[in-house]
């Protein structure tokens, strides 16, 4: 707790003391660093952590600034109403832009942000009532409880408070259920959906948070400057915000502060020094920053903060919540042998290729069903149909009597179907515990605000306790805090199983769970699967290890050329002439 709060207190203390000891000019610089940091914080969350690059943040700063400028100077309203209006307008515009542009794949999104960043900038300059490119002058002071926030020193404190509160909220968010969901957005959105996470909503939330922080910064900026004109809200400034986090550290909240400080200070130094060297300074700093960013990205891709951190001792892992957390509610398990999943007549075509042709399959509760077949038989396609990643061209799939074909992976996951992936999809830098806790996402309810305020600690403790329980169950208790990416591949597969179990599934779909495991690990896995069977869960596994499959399964389905070749008990399959022909070659 203190480890997280101490830097924030120090920051606040420094902001209180700085105006007493520093010359006025340095205080002004500090204020700018603070204002830029606010915007950069949102950008770290959005770009560094959630993987959505935005060149348009400056436009949201502009919205915050112009809203208060217009309301206070032209309508004589209080700056607080200006803040409220600014945030409301930001919320509306960010939601609209978010709904429109966040669907954009990969590089289309940053280009989209560039486009609306430019469009908003030209609107600031041209909309009647906004003062054109000359801007709006004479903004009033902010007053709170009889305190006039007028001089730079006052602002230092106000900005520091805004900054500290923002960092606290964002840090809380990142260490919560919603934060884990946000961290999947960058590289593993597909996996996240399979865990029941609504990634589109998470994206929008992150986008709105970043916009609101920018707008807040704009409000403070407008009243600090008392003048608002379009220039500081141009795309060039939007690019500078991005440079800040690239320099400081894209993926860390403190990187935003470091980057904002670096950029502001270097700029200042350059503006002081260059005229003495070259006689003029115009735009030299642009060359400097351009080259600096290129070098940082070439040689220290994570920014400078990770480089500095590497010199410090590694942080201790966060202690587990020790309080006895209430167990999470569990789904009622249907009686053993009752049909869970039934697929009939499934057809999946990719252009001219028929990957699945009239494929049928049944999985019962309390049984292990294995799906085997040579490479290219269509097993993975079938898996994707069952888990909702692909929609079948024909046929139907029911789960507990309910049609699920055509549903999204998220909807299917929420019904109690959980899966692992053939190519392991873990977040390599997150701990095993956090990765597994992702599986429990849909068993929690805490929303964004409760997560930011850490009002959901009870639920969070329950989720983490459940994740710990599942990790212990699969035998990885020693690796709770190890980054998942540092485990050998076989153990990563086991982590995936723990993650799947964490969602309290009725049916688990395991894609080659034994691949890469050693003999002893395979036996442990077999024991685990037998335990799941005893608990009444249904298990469908794709596996190439015949010894493993034959010893474990109740029922085997053999696929070849996208069709069902045979099905039955392991004994029946071993004696089935068609299967023997497919696996061993026909007798001629």
């Amino acid at each position, binding site marked *: 707790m203190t480890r997280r709060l101490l830097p924030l207190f120090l920051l606040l203390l420094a902001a209180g003391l700085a105006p007493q000891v520093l010359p006025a000019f340095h205080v002004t610089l500090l204020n700018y660093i603070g204002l830029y940091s606010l915007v950069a914080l949102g950008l770290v969350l959005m770009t560094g952590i959630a993987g959505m690059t935005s060149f348009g943040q400056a436009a949201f700063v502009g919205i915050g600034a112009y809203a208060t400028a217009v309301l206070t100077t032209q309508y004589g309203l209080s700056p607080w109403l200006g803040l409220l209006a600014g945030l409301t307008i930001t919320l509306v515009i960010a939601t609209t832009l978010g709904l429109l542009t966040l669907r954009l794949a990969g590089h289309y999104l940053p280009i989209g942000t560039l486009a609306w960043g430019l469009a908003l900038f030209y609107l600031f300059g041209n909309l009647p009532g906004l003062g054109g490119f000359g801007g709006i002058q004479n903004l009033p002071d902010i007053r709170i409880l009889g305190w006039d926030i007028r001089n730079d020193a006052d602002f230092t404190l106000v900005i520091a408070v805004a900054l500290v509160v923002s960092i606290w909220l964002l840090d809380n968010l990142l260490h919560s259920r919603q934060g884990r969901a946000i961290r999947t957005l960058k590289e593993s959105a597909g996996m996240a959906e399979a865990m029941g996470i609504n990634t589109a909503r998470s994206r929008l939330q992150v986008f709105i948070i970043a916009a609101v922080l920018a707008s807040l910064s704009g409000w403070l900026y407008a009243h600090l400057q008392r003048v608002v004109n379009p220039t500081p809200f141009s795309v060039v400034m939007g690019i500078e915000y991005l440079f800040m986090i690239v320099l400081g550290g894209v993926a860390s909240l403190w990187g935003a502060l470091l980057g904002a400080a670096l950029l502001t200070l270097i700029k200042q130094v350059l503006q002081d020094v260059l005229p003495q060297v070259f006689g003029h300074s115009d735009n030299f700093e*642009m060359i400097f920053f351009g080259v600096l960013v290129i070098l940082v990205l070439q040689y220290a891709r994570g920014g400078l903060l990770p480089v500095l951190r590497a010199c410090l001792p590694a942080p201790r892992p966060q202690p587990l919540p020790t309080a006895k957390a209430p167990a999470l509610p569990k789904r009622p398990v249907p009686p053993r042998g009752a049909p869970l999943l039934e697929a009939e007549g499934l057809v999946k075509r990719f252009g001219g290729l028929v990957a699945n042709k009239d494929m049928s399959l049944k999985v019962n509760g309390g049984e292990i069903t294995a799906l085997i077949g040579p490479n290219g038989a269509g097993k993975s396609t079938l898996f994707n149909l069952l888990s909702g990643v692909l929609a079948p061209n024909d046929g139907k799939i029911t789960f507990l009597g309910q049609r699920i074909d055509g549903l999204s992976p998220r909807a299917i996951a929420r019904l109690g179907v959980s899966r692992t992936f053939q190519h392991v999809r873990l977040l390599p830098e997150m701990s095993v515990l956090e990765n597994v806790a992702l599986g429990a996402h849909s068993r929690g309810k805490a929303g964004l605000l409760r997560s930011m305020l850490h009002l959901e600690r009870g639920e969070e403790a329950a989720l983490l306790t459940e994740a710990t329980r599942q990790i212990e169950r699969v035998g990885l208790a020693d690796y709770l805090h190890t980054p998942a990416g540092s485990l050998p591949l076989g153990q990563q597969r086991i982590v995936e199983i723990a993650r799947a179990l964490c969602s309290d599934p009725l049916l688990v779909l395991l894609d080659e769970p034994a691949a890469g495991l050693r003999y002893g690990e395979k036996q442990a896995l077999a024991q685990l699967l037998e335990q799941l069977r005893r608990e009444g869960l249904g298990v469908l596994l794709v596996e190439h290890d015949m010894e493993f499959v034959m010893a474990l399964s109740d029922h085997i389905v053999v696929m070849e050329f996208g069709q069902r070749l045979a099905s039955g008990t392991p004994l029946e399959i071993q004696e089935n002439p068609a299967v023997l022909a497919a696996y061993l070659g026909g007798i001629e």
Partner: protein
Amino acid sequence: MDTSILAFLAQDGLTTGAIYALVALALVLVFSVTRTILVCQGDFVTYSALTLATLQLGLVPGTVWLLMGCSIAACLLDCGCALKHRHWRQIPGLLVRYLSLPLVLCGVASYVDLATLPAALQIIMTLAIVTPLGPLLYRLVYQRVAETSVLLLLIISVAVHIALVGISLQMFGAEGVRTHALADTVLMLGDLPVGVQSLLVIASALVLIGLLYAFFGHTLYGKALRATALNRNGAQLVGIPTQLAGKSAFGLAAFIGAVSGVLIGPLTTLYYDSGFLISLKGFVAAIFGGLASYPLAAVSAFLVGVLESFANYGASAYKEVIVFTLVIPVLLWLSLKNPHIEEQH
């Protein structure tokens, strides 16, 4: 709005559209080979126009020194690599390859009266100065990070653009320039006056587009370049030198940019920082084509040009707003068409 204004606006739009088409083409080209969105494509255009204008004034353009500096830096990098691997024999070759062209250009710039050179030689010299900047840029900036994500490459491109604009201001100053017209004849098509320069621009654009289309669709080398974009490792395994592919793409892009600059120079006043908006409008067009299709990008570039020209007439204050807002529905349509937001590495 009568028909003569209409015709004038259309002609104006088609001419700027042709330039956007060339920019869009270069963007598609570089993107499809290196996955880089070349934000600085517009800077090649301004560098070229401003270089030509400086030559016409009889002065030595700063781009010559920039070329020299970049060549020396790239040469040092490559020599460093050669020394590390103890390939001593490569060094003389590297020196000749990197330094001969800039030295020749410096020599010409110092000893020849540039203003009296025939226009064709001035243009050739401009192309010779600007085109090599492309491959040099690839060597200095992108080669080291060629494997990273599209997003990182985009941020790097923006940084490159910012640096180039700063350098541009140092080299050319803040004043806008126009170059001498290549042809100032005006033809009369019925009642409609048509500038030969405009026709030249449109025709050159169309020819270049056709050539690129044929090159990428129908030659082995073009296909090799495309293969590099799809899968660098795979391309390397089948023997395509991917670094060379990157350099070629950047070289072609810089060449197209230089030609665009020569063409547009007499028609509009260009400033040191005009490249950004040119790039962005080229983008808009390239995006219409999904960053993949040359003909679609070209057609939409003409549309963007015409749209801008009419917006300029009808609502000049909002012309940028109109052009850029238009991108969003297009992007949206593209994303809906290919709805895979899956794992972008």
